[in-house]
């Protein structure tokens, strides 16, 4: 081996130095080792992380979309529930209103009947009272009339008639006054 260009039968195809051949291989192996231990793992780790990230991003987006869809369906369902509920409440209110109306009407009717009944009872009581009073008065009046008739001459027909007429008239006046007071039909005969 010389330091000058090899000049054998192979000419420049033979290495000038075996050292080139060996060093070339050694350096190449060193680079391969660095690539295998450091460089390529760095790239591949980063690539797989990137793929995970992209895949994860897509999953997340899908999940978000599903969630949004679920929420939409839920709200639509709720909306439908609400409107049907509102309708049922309206119906209920209408029914309640009708019921309350009926109840009030019944109550009013009952009250009216009660008032009418109590009125009737009062009238009846007053009528009884008036009748009793009248009976008492009629006796007294008959007695008074009889006294007056006895005190005058019975010959004079005209005077007797007039006395009777006056009496009846006075009764009639009494009756009228009683009628106004009790505001009922005349209790006089």
């Amino acid at each position, binding site marked *: 081996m010389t330091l000058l260009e090899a000049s054998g039968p192979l000419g420049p195809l033979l290495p000038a130095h075996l050292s080139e051949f060996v060093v070339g291989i050694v350096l190449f192996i060193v680079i391969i080792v660095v690539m295998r231990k450091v460089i390529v793992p760095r*790239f591949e780790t980063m690539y797989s992380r990137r793929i995970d990230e992209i895949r994860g991003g897509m999953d997340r987006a899908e999940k978000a979309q599903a969630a949004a869809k679920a929420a939409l369906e839920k709200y639509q369902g709720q909306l439908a529930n609400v409107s049907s509920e509102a309708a049922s409440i309206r119906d209920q209110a209408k029914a309640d209103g009708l019921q309350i109306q009926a109840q009030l009407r019944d109550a009013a009717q009952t009250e009216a009947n009660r008032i009418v009944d109590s009125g009737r009872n009062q009238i009846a009581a007053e009528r009884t009272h008036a009748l009793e009073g009248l009976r008492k008065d009629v006796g007294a009046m008959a007695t008074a009339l009889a006294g007056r008739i006895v005190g005058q001459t019975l010959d004079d027909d005209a005077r007797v008639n007039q006395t009777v007429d006056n009496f009846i008239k006075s009764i009639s006046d009494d009756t009228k006054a009683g009628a106004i007071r009790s505001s009922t039909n005349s209790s006089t005969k």
Partner: protein
Amino acid sequence: MSNGVGSPTLLTGEAPVFDTSAFDSQPLFPSAVWHQSGGEQYTWTDIWLTNHIAMAIIGAVIVIGFWLIVSHNMKIVPSRRQWFGEYVYNIIRNGVGRSMIGDGYQRFVPWLLALFCFILVNNWFGEFFPFMFPTFAKIGFAWGLALMTWLLYNYVGIRRNGFGHYMKKMTIPAGVPKPLLLLVTPLEFISNFLTRPITLGIRLFANLFAGHLMVLIFVVGGTYLLTYTDNLPYNLAGGASLLMSFFIFALELLVGFLQAYVFTVLTAQYVSSALSDEH
């Protein structure tokens, strides 16, 4: 580092002596022994630390440094630096590894990436200061990588198929009539086990060697003609030649990339064929 090229004898009109010393390795730190013996004797540093070996080491350091920097603190959302790293990484990982090897390509990505970057950086040394010399124009380095590829695809092929089945697969193509096998089997053997590594090594070496030679010719020859006394046509031709050398440099950048890529793709291709179930 490519010193002593041609050493055209200026102003005399003598034709320059063009020797190949531009491609010679020199000890990086010439020892006293080497100097005294006129370069005939040497210590181990004279051989193991030549200028070209130093270039290869620097190239490896650049490759490792580059990848350590671009892969530092990687984020899911890449920075500009990381984006560039991913771009280069994906050229090899997806463009070469995945598309050539297919299933199980991941385990070859470090190899292919190392191969591509190591060759590329060393090739581009030919176009950039301070080296101005492509490392793989020294064939020793090219043979080294070719051997590594040869070992790789045979190793994975034997591991996948077993030695017997692998040899059968590599030398006896399916569907060939029996009598023809007499012809085909030796050809297949030569093609798969000899031609592949040899062509890999020579292709890489020859492209870089020839490219560097071209650059030398255009630059050295152009300089010689440009500085030739009292000969305007020579001077014009020399100027044109120097201008042309820029084009050659650009071409060499492309060739440097292409050779790195081709070496890597072929390695992946060989691995793929060694792993495949059918030939």
